[in-house]
């Protein structure tokens, strides 16, 4: 079960069309969403999270349609959402922030409070549970963000450029986080970084100009790399091949 877009069109207020009758389904498992700036990656993820409502068309997760008011609660409870900017809630500790996120996602207070520690443990931050979230580094804060999506037992976790601004060590730690996360939920991650695709993800979706240019397994994506692509740069080469000249 995954997110399906059906004739989905979206336009921000007074802006140009970002998505025009987009129809596709994210595969289950670990999926990376690639695309140049302005391709509509964040819009797609925000629509999938139901943080945005499409101007036309529909988004579904299994049988759940967020446009149907009675299904919105279930939809949002099932879909975890880590936006591009993870912010420390002023005055809160890590555990409080994670518990609060759980409460916002409909969990009972006590349940969210109890579930916050295992969620932090899953992202390797259990020892920092009682530390002010505002005192964490950017990478740690993103892991708190991941814990926020875990605490309410989401079945699908969406992450918008979670590795932007992280140093190599933090990216490695984040990769492990995604691996552990995928044991309990499907994961969709948008990113510009292609160097570790093979180790982390099962599927690749390339979005450009509001349309899906590629959707397939990582092996199929690797196969798009032209012969003679430099070792370790196959993903970049395949990505360039999908987009065609001048796209990036």
């Amino acid at each position, binding site marked *: 079960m995954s997110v399906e877009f059906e004739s989905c069109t979206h336009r921000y207020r007074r802006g140009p069309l970002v998505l025009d009758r987009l129809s596709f389904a994210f595969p289950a498992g670990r999926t990376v969403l690639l695309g140049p700036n302005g391709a509509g990656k964040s819009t797609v993820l925000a629509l999938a999270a139901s943080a945005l409502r499409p101007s036309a068309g529909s988004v579904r997760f299994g049988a759940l349609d967020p446009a149907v008011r009675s299904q919105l609660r279930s939809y949002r409870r099932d879909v975890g959402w880590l936006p591009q900017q993870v*912010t420390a809630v002023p*005055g809160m500790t890590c555990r409080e922030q994670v518990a*609060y996120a759980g409460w916002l996602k409909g969990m009972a207070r006590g349940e969210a*409070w109890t579930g916050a520690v295992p969620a932090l443990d899953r992202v390797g931050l259990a020892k920092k549970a009682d530390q002010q979230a505002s005192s964490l580094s950017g990478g740690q804060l993103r892991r708190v963000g991941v814990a926020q999506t875990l605490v309410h037992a989401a079945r699908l976790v969406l992450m918008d450029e979670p590795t932007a601004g992280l140093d190599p060590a933090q990216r490695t730690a984040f990769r492990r986080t995604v691996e552990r996360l995928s044991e309990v939920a499907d994961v969709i991650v948008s990113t510009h970084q292609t160097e570790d695709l093979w180790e982390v993800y099962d599927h690749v979706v390339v979005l450009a100009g509001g349309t899906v240019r590629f959707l397939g397994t990582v092996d199929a994506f690797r196969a798009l790399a032209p012969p003679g692509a430099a070792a370790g740069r196959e993903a970049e080469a395949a990505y360039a091949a999908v987009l065609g000249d001048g796209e990036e």
Partner: protein
Amino acid sequence: MVFRLHLRANAAFAAAGPLLVVVLLYVFAEEVGGGPDGYWVAGTAKAVSALMFIAPVVAACAAWEAGRLRRAGVAGGAPVRGGFRIAMASLSPVLALGLLALLVSLVGVRVGMAAAPGWPEPTILAAAVVTLCGWLAVGYALGVWLPPAASVPLALVGGYLWQVYPPALEPLWLRHLTQPARGCCTSADAVAAGGLSGPALAAVALAGTAVAAAALSRRAPRRGAPGGARSVLVTAVALLVASATGVAAVRAVSGLGPDAVAARSADELVCADAGAATRVCVWPEHERRLDETVEVVRTAVAGLAPVGIAPPALVTELPHQAAQYEPAAGGEDGAVTGGAVTDGAATDDSASGGTPPSTGSPDQWTITVRAATSFTTDDIRAGLAADLAGALLDGGSRTPAADCPADPADAADQGFQAANHLFAWLAVRAGTEPQEARDRFDPQLWTAVGAALDGDDAAQAAWFRATLDRAGCAPR
């Protein structure tokens, strides 16, 4: 919320100490309009006047909390909870602080009251809570729209100015939109209905505007998407409610003067007989001193009847304009119904033993009683004498003495001097010890009064009538 975060990290937690200190300082320092004297309506009004500090702080805390939600990106986090639940989770500690501050103010006022039968006035408290909720909503809306650096000071300063500036403006009723029961009450007053419904409706109007603003904002946490049909509907309904309640608020207060008061119902008076024909009535908060007051009246009646001042049918705390007493047959079960004092001959002179004819003495005397023990029996007696002197001097049937000086200034001087003599003489006849009276009054004045008091009752009655006539020389 049981989350520690909603208490420990909440702005209300930090603001509680300073606010409660300010409220306590205010309650114990503020003496404008006098103390409530055991009268809970006045006491409750005084307690809720601390809203001038509480409401701005509550609004500022709400603005800060909205800013936290805004900075935390809750609106973009696709929450399952509805916007109202999310807001209330953050705002409930703030509201609790406001209610606690009101409670502290109320307790502070109660501590300052010597006796306080009954309970705080619930209608005033209800209007205060509605006002508080209005400011909570306004602060939240400001915090949704503006960054904390702007919203918090704006809520704090703007809220304070809203509370304290309108009383300096015309028209006078403007002040009653800001705070319930403003200017209420002396013992003789009740709170005017418009003084409660006006500010409550104005607070609902403020809250409606705030809700409309929050519903329009893309930064307000909500379950649905901003700009959706539901947001538009909420905005429209909120604006409609704000308009209707705003108009209703102005209509409710537009008839009020500087104080939100109405005449207190005479039905509240607690009465007892002081002799066959005289009934004494005090406000319930002074009931503990009713026996003492009855004794003062009994003594006064006994002292004044022999010199021609007839026992009144009623001695009451209700001011003249509002009192009307209809003694039942035998004078045992009279009822105070509200009305005007009579000014005619004595009704029943049984206590005087048929002494000199009465001198147009009033059928109702006004008395002043206070709950505080610092207000002594002598103070009650002096008040009685002063009120009686005033009533006698204002009596419509009196004619000025024939030998009033021709010069108006001299006439006035003679009239005022005679009035002072009369007051001192009445005090002693009403039961004040001569030594006490000597201490209270000007020695020069006392010479004439002392000489009069040395005469027998008939001589004093004649002196009284002559002095009353001389007092009539003063311009009226």
